[in-house]
C-alpha cells in the first residue's frame, strides 16, 4: 500500500501528542507498519506543536515533508494555516473550529486571521476541508479536554475505518477513569461526520 501520511498540529497542551499516539496505535491494529514522530521541549509551553504519523507497508521516513501529507489534522484554526504547505495537492484537512490567541496577538502585535480568510486559503490548497466544532462537541459531553478524541473520531469516519478499531485502541491506551468520556467523544466525532452533510 502507498504510505498514508498524517500531520497533526495544535497548540501545546491540546493533546496533540495523545491524538497522534491513538492514530498510530489504530494503524498498528489495522495490521499496518506505522511510524509516529513528535517533537518535545519548549513548544509544549503554549507554542505551536506538530507531529507526524505514517501508515504503510512498509514505512521508511518518519518525517513528512512539504507537499507530502495526505491528511492534515488541526486542533486549532491558525495552526492549520501554519502547516498547510505540508499538505499534498488535494489532500484532506480536518480543522477544529477553535481559536487560541497566540501571545503575539493578545499583545496587539499581530492579527488573528478571520474565518473567511482561513477558509479561502484552505480552499486554495484543497476542496476536502472539514470544519469540525470539536470543542463544542466535547464540551457538550462534559469536557473540552476530549476535543482531540472527537477529532480522531471524525478522521476515522473520514478514512472509512470502522469505529471498533478506535474503540479497542482507546481501551488499551486511556486510563480507566477517563475511558468512558473518551469513548463517547470518539463516537460523537464519528457520528458527527456520518450525519453532517459534508461532501468533502
Amino acid at each position: 500500500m502507498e504510505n498514508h501520511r498524517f500531520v497533526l498540529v495544535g497548540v501545546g497542551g491540546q493533546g496533540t501528542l495523545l491524538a497522534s499516539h491513538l492514530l498510530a496505535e489504530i494503524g498498528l491494529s489495522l495490521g499496518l507498519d506505522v511510524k509516529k514522530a513528535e517533537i518535545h521541549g519548549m513548544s509544549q509551553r503554549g507554542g505551536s506543536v506538530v507531529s507526524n504519523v505514517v501508515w504503510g507497508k512498509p514505512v521508511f521516513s518518519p518525517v513528512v515533508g512539504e507537499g507530502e501529507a495526505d491528511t492534515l489534522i488541526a486542533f486549532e484554526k491558525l495552526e492549520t494555516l501554519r502547516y498547510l504547505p505540508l499538505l499534498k495537492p488535494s489532500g484532506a484537512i480536518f480543522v477544529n473550529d477553535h481559536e487560541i490567541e497566540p501571545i503575539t496577538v493578545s499583545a496587539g502585535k499581530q492579527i488573528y486571521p478571520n474565518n473567511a480568510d482561513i477558509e479561502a486559503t484552505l480552499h486554495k490548497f484543497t476542496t476536502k476541508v472539514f470544519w469540525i466544532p470539536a470543542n463544542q462537541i466535547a464540551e457538550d459531553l462534559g469536557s473540552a479536554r476530549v476535543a482531540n478524541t472527537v477529532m480522531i473520531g471524525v478522521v476515522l469516519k473520514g478514512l472509512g475505518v470502522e469505529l471498533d478499531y478506535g474503540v479497542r485502541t482507546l481501551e488499551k491506551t486511556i486510563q480507566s477513569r477517563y475511558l468512558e468520556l473518551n469513548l463517547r467523544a470518539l463516537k460523537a466525532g464519528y457520528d458527527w461526520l456520518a450525519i453532517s452533510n459534508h461532501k468533502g
Partner: protein
Amino acid sequence: MKRLLSGNEAVARGAWTAGAVVGSGYPGTPSTEIMEIFARYPGVYAEWAPNEKVALDVAIGAAYAGRRAFATMKHVGLNVAADSLFYAAMTGIEAGLVIVSADDPSMHSSQNEQDNRQYAKFVRIPCIDPADSQEAHDFAIAAFDLSERFDTPVLLRLTTRVCHTSTPVEVSEQRFVSSDPIKYPRNVAKYVMVPANARRRHGVIEHRIQEISQYAETSPLNRMEIRSSQLGIITGGIAYQYAREVFPEASILKLGLVYPLPAALIRNFASMVERLIVLEELDPFIEHQVRLLGVELYRGKQTLDTPKGIFPIVGELNAQIVRKAAIEAGLIEGEMLQTSPSFPMELPQRPPVLCPGCPHRGAFFVLSKLKVPVNGDIGCYTLGLTEPLNAIHTCGCMGASIGVAHGAAVAGDQERHVAVIGDSTFFHTGIPALINVVYNRSNVITIIMDNRVTGMTGHQDNPGTGKTLQGRDTTEIDIENVVRALGFTYVKTLNGYDVEGIEKTLKEWMKISDPAVLITREECALLPEARAKYVPLEVVEEKCNGCTMCFRVGCPAISKSEKLDPRYQRPLAVIDPSLCTGCEICAQVCPRDAILFRNQVLDKQEIDQ
C-alpha cells in the same frame, strides 16, 4: 507481538534486557524518557544525577564494580561529561558500560547541533547509530556486549527522530543475567591514570580501536542490501530511512557501527556499484573517513571541494530534502514536487511562553522594569526572553549564567549584572559558579528561580524536591542553606509571586556592592498540587481603564477585550478563566485595583451564592 515503542522506550527496554542494573542520567530533550522508563523496570537502580559528568562517573563506577551500567544525556550533556568519557576510554571497564547521547539535528530544543559521532572518534570508542526503535532496542543490547568484548565504553548515539519516533518493536521477555559480580578490581596499572600508567594505556586504546575495526568487517551491526548496481549508498542512523524512501532501487551499505568503520567492507561495496554516495545527517563523518580510504565518491555536479558532497551539512534531513539534493546532483530524474501555492497571508507567530501562573514571571516582570542586563540560563525560565518581558540578554549553556555575569563584572562593566538560574540548573553546574562569585568578590546578583522541579523537560525530580527518580523519599537539599554555606551574606528567599518583595529586595541590593542571592521559591503551576489551588481571577470592568500595565506581565490568560474604556477608547483587560491560575501577579501590578485577588474572588462567589 510487536508493540509501538519510541526509540527512547526501546533503549530503556534493551538496557534492561541486556541486564543493566545501574542507570544514571540528567534530563535533557530528546533523551529524557530513557531513564524515566528504565527506572520502572524491576531489579534496577536508576537515578537523576545533578549533571551529566556525575551521571557518567556513577555508571563508570558501577561498571568498574562488575555491573552493567549506562548513562543518558542529550548531546550537549556529553560536553559536560567529556572529561569522564576520556578517562573511561583509557581505563576500560569490568562490565558493560554504555553512554547514550541523544543528538538534536535542527535544534528543536537545543542551543547547538553538534554531531556526537565525533566524540567516539576523538575518544577512540565504538559508536553505534540505530535507525528505528527496533534497532534502538537491539543495538542497546549489542552495545553492552561490544563493551565487554573489547573492554571499552560504547557510545550509543541517537537523534531526535529516533528518540521520539515510535515504531513497532519485538522485544524479548528474557533478561540477561550476568554471572556473580567479580571482586572489586585491584588493578592500579589499568584503573589509576597517573602519567606512567596512562602512557601505556594510550597504546592499548589505539590498538583496541584497530581490533574493533576488524570486528566491524563482519559485525551484524553492519549489513549490505544489494539491489541495483547503478547506485550504492553508504548510510547509517535515521538517514538510512531517507535513503530507502528516496532511492528504493539503490544498493545500501547500512552501517550500525559508524565508528570505527570497516575499510574492507566499504571497498568491497564500492567495487559493486557504479556510483557511490554517502548519505548522513549533519557532519560528513562517514564521508570523510571513506574518502581517506581512497574510495571515490560521486560528487554530482560540484566542482569545488566542499566539506560535504551532495547533502546539506546543516539541519535535519528528510526524504524531501534528500530527494531535492539528489535531483540537483543528477542522481535521480524528476522535477521538484509542486508545493505550496504562494501563501497569501502573514500568520501571527506562536512562540512558546511562560505558562499562565508561572512563578518565574514575578521576577522577570521586575527585571524588565529595572532594565538591568540579565544573564540567563537553560530551562523554562529562558522564556523570560520573550515579548513583552524581554528580560534575558544572554543564554549559552547549563550553568553559564552566573559565570558570564561574573565575567562582565570583573571586566568592569558599569551596569549591575543579574544572573538567573533554575533550581535544577543550580545543582547541575550553578554551585561552582556561585563559589567563584563569592570567592573572587564580584557584585553579581543571582536569582535562583526555584520552582521545585526540573520543569522544561517535563517535571523530573532533582536534589531539591525530596524525591528520587524511583520515588523514594530523600534529603531535600535546602538551596538557601547551601548558598549561605558558600559564604554569601546577602541571601533571601521570597515567594515567586511576591512582585513587590522582589522589587524591593533587588533595589536595595543595587545600592550595595556585595554579591547577593535571591531565591524565588514557588512550585511550578503545572504540578498537580498547584493545579488543585487554581482560582481564576476577574477584571472589574468599571475600574479598568485600559492602561496596559497587566498586559506587560506577558500572561497568556490576559488579553484585550472588545470593550473599550469610555474615556480613552482603549481596550479593557479580560481574563480567560480556563487559563488563569490565580497567581495574582497581574492583580499586584494593576495600579487601579481593577483585578480581584483570590480572596476577593472567593468572597464574591460566596455572596453570589
